[in-house]
């Protein structure tokens, strides 16, 4: 079987001796054009993959930063068409392997998922889709060659880690949640990150990306020997919010710092 874009991206970072950097942006926050511009900045900064969020009314796994981003996008009437447009443009402009973060309900409301594939999505990150649940969506995703990225958390038992390892898509990675809690930038590297990564490593073959609460280069440096990828969302959105019109440069610089910090 051919390697997936995701696999290739992780492999390339590994070959370069560093962790893969996966910035997260909310589609349409505050406009499609902005998201695309910021995604380009991420790419220019050296990102290895990119994750785009589908704004949702009830983001239960997200802290205040991403909740607010979601709300801003919804307030701008970012609906399904705008999300698809954002995805397609980000994919075109950056060429990066692209993940879509979406809660389950907006996906369930699509007749089928092929528009996602057409827009260039390589993998789905669904925070409220637990391992046990196999709604039709998993089958559909498989048919479309869309990876469904599983989660592992500090509370996940060895037994479940093994199950996750066994069922993870070969062409995908496992999203390791660094802490007990929702998304949002934290001071320092969350304490749960390294123990989880070390436990997961023993039971899971695919790459491990760590996310939730990764605040910047310092945290990336601390985690880069144990993780294959880092997902940085809230910290990036905080910068965009802080810097307004200057955000494109800030984002490019910040992603660059993350990449630099990720060398082992």
């Amino acid at each position, binding site marked *: 079987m051919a390697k997936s874009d995701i696999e290739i991206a992780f492999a390339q970072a590994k070959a370069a001796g560093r962790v893969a950097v996966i910035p997260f942006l909310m589609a349409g926050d505050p406009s499609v054009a902005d998201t695309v511009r910021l995604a380009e900045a991420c790419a220019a900064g050296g990102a290895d993959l990119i994750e785009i969020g589908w704004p949702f009314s009830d983001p239960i796994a997200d802290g205040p930063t991403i909740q607010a981003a979601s709300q801003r996008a919804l307030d701008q009437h970012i609906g399904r068409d705008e999300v698809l447009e954002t995805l397609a443009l980000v994919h075109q402009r950056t060429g990066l392997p692209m993940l879509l973060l979406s809660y389950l309900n*907006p996906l369930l409301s699509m007749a089928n998922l092929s528009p996602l594939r057409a827009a260039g999505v390589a993998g789905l990150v669904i925070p409220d889709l*637990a391992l046990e*649940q196999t709604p039709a969506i998993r089958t559909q995703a498989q048919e479309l060659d869309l990876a469904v990225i599983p989660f592992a958390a500090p509370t996940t038992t060895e037994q479940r880690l093994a199950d996750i390892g066994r069922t993870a898509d070969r062409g995908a990675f496992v999203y390791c949640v660094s802490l007990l809690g929702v998304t949002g930038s934290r001071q320092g590297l969350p304490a749960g990150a390294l123990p989880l990564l070390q436990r997961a490593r023993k039971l899971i073959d695919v790459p491990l990306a760590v996310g939730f609460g990764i605040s910047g280069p310092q945290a990336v440096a601390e985690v880069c020997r144990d993780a294959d990828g880092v997902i940085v969302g809230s910290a990036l959105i905080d910068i965009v919010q802080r810097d307004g019109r200057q955000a494109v440069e800030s984002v490019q610089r910040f992603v660059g710092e993350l990449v630099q910090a990720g060398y082992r």
Partner: protein
Amino acid sequence: MPTEPDAGGHFGDFGGRFVPETLIPALDQLQQAFSEAMADSDFLAELDRLNREYTGRPSLLYHARALSQAVGGADIYLKREDLNHTGAHKINNTIGQALLTRRMGKRKLIAETGAGQHGVATATVAALFGMECEVFMGAEDVRRQSLNVRRMELLGTRVRTVESGSRTLKDAINEALRAWVGSVQDTHYVIGSVMGPHPFPLMVRTFQSVIGQEARTQVVAHTGRLPDLLVAAVGGGSNAAGLFHPFLDDDVAMVGVEAAGEGLEARHAATLSRGRPGVLHGARSYVLQDDEGQIQEAHSLSAGLDYPGVGPEHSLWKDSGRVQYVSCTDQQAVTALIQLSRTEGVLCALESAHAVAEAIKQARQLGPGKTIVVCLSGRGDKDVDELNRFLEAHPDGQV
């Protein structure tokens, strides 16, 4: 139609567990603790003792003679959950969950609340069991149910006002789920209705089934036979499930009453009538949502029904046709509340008034000789300010 969910908590196509991975082990632990407890006669005896000695169960089944007469139809019986300690059915569930929490060795409780009744019921058991407690409540509900906010605080609970989204129950649940993800190792999340991820819908329904079990015995004692119809309001659906479940296999009609708010064509909370299946708050069930799967804001004068989701078992009961789901507007509920109050001297919760309104309607249709049991899920003290505002804004609504 199965009356019990499968091992994964599926009621037909509904239910399940749609939550962040972090919570899955806690749900496993809860599920295990729950099923062990249900097989443990000591646990059941303790639950029964608290129901009797603390809550004051069995709650009365009251023959509302004056109301029945005024309506001129079937005999209406009220299952008086409003007489429970703390004033609603919610405590049936929180006592059970507090016992489980102790069994699991956890010491902290969190909960969401809409009308504040579940919050008060959780704060109450937290005090009784010596546990810390934090309750999430939408800012809109904090405003309209301020009495219950103060009650929780006096019980030693911290009330966290939720400012996101529609600032009602839905958002309080979001915030409680987020808080639980961050505290799951020492904290139990006491969900207040037959919703959320497995095993909550099963567990809450089990603890609430005491309503239907008692009602069954009581109505037979009163009338010599099973009732013709059961009526209950449906927010998340716990008082309805508690009343209905013990009668599922019987030849008894059942009607669940959702909140039609300002009308089904306007703002409402009629999830089963106007929603479609989706995933919200950890389970697959009917959900009020737009074409693209964004959850819609619900609206009901009654904070406890103001929710765009519903328990998965009700979705099954709806699809199977076992239970009929109808709806009742704010105005109709207020009218029924006042009618009950003026004929029987019973001031019920706005939530319960939805069931009363439907019972009055059905009593007329069924006619004399038939028996209706209505779940009077709570008392109205918490609602007088809100009623006041409503009646001032709708002077025609005054009976």
